[in-house]
């Protein structure tokens, strides 16, 4: 059965970091419409530190690697993004504790752990106009790919499509979590910054894989 190794997970996180750093300003602009315009800055700050400390990370297994990423992200991502992205990584790390490879099924379960971590931390659910509106569809799509025995290549591609689609849908939602929620109805017609960002990140990961 096809599996990802620790090095594959490292590559995925590296691509994620590059996309975030490259898109710092566009991600801020996405957050300007209804939020406070700092989302790109907040996530890029943490991922820049991650990149700088890349060679010192514990890569002895997937769990350790994700945990050391999670520590840096929790410390250095600003605003809401620190705890959201940090708890995603920490929770995924717990799932992958001691593991050095993952099947598609396990990868889907790891993503579910990330979703659970974010929900424990922030209390948002599908439709609250947060990045979960992209991340949950991606996770569901990965689970279906596992059932259908898809390749990683295909699973990641479908997962990215689900994220993009989910992010698009947020345009129709009224925000009820995060800073955009203060704007109430005024948030309609603007997509959620975090969800849009995940669509872009996952698309790039799928292409590079």
């Amino acid at each position, binding site marked *: 059965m096809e599996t990802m190794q620790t090095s594959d997970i490292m590559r995925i996180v590296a691509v994620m970091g590059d996309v975030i750093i490259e898109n710092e300003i566009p991600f801020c602009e996405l957050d300007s419409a209804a939020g406070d315009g700092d989302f790109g800055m907040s996530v890029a700050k943490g991922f820049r530190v991650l990149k700088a400390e890349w060679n010192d990370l514990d890569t002895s297994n997937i769990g350790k690697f994700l945990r050391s990423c999670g520590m840096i992200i929790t410390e250095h991502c600003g605003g809401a993004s620190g705890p959201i992205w940090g708890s995603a990584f920490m929770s995924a790390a717990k799932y992958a504790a001691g593991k050095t490879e993952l099947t598609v099924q396990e990868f889907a379960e790891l993503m579910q752990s990330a979703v659970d971590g974010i929900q424990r931390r922030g209390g948002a659910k599908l439709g609250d106009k947060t990045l979960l509106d992209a991340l949950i569809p991606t996770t569901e799509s990965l689970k279906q790919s596992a059932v259908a025995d898809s390749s990683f290549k295909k699973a990641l591609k479908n997962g990215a499509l689900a994220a993009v689609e989910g992010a698009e849908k947020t345009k129709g939602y009224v925000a009820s979590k995060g800073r955009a929620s*203060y704007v109430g109805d005024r948030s309609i017609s603007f997509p959620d910054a975090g969800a849009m960002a995940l669509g872009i990140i996952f698309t790039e990961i799928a292409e590079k894989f």
Partner: protein
Amino acid sequence: MKKIMNKAEDLVIEMCEGMEKAYPQSLVFNHKYKIMRRKNLNKDKVSLISGGGSGHEPSHAGFVGTGMLDAAVCGDVFASPSTIQVYNAIHETRSSMGTLLIVKNYSGDCMNFDAAAEMAEDDDDAIQVERVYVNDDVAVKDSLYTVGRRGVAGTVFVHKIAGAAAEKGLDLLKVKAVAEKVIANVRSMGFALTSCTVPAKGTPTFTLAENEMEFGVGIHGEPGVVREEIADADQLAAKLLERILGDIPFAAGDEVAVMVNGFGASPLQELFVLSNSAAKILAEKDIAVYRTFVGNYMTAIDMVGASITLLKLDDELKSFLDAPANTAALNA
């Protein structure tokens, strides 16, 4: 953007260093985690920590000192400090009586202060940590389905009163109860005549026409209730107080503390005019003003505008409000 600064990315650190140098007798600044704490900590009282994004000066570091906070954790401009920063503040100010975190109700702040509290409680040498969430901004509807009201200038009353309770030696749960009593009785509302400019961005967050104001604006330049024509001071006070008094049951004869808070670029002369307008209205409504605070307490960097806060008082709150405090921004 015309600002007195060097590089935008160094602003928070340089500001905190400037503050530490201005108050070397009373403040110590932890550079790594951007924590401003009292130089002489009292290990036998409940520790009080607040903080949040920078840009609200003198909040929160200006309220660190005897009778108020033990530490303020400083995030980047308008961005919550990280979980790790807050966690380190909890450790740096640990006392034998536990720690109360005073959090303004924004999702980023709540998540980071919550996660830090959990981390501290999970430690081998666990610290008892309690939290309160200030949500005094009546511009935002409070509802089960949203993150609720924002925390704004009323937070300063929580610092003052909970700080006095802690200084008096009350235990953690009692200090928390006092803080929650303040939160239950404090309401604020503000307006902006111009936007603020976040230094890293360099351009205003929003734009208003020459005759427009944003009524119900947030302290990060978040939109409020409505964008409408500028009103005069008497009308502004009436509109703000109408919202505030509509939100919390005030009865004729009630005593309140009033705070007229500038957002950073409104001159003191105008804040006193606004406070005069507010005093006239409160007198008409037979609401007794026990004390008035006028000045810049919870700013939005360089926004032109102000907010009014009312805190309903009882004897306990009054005595804590009047208790001594010795901080950079508030002395009593």
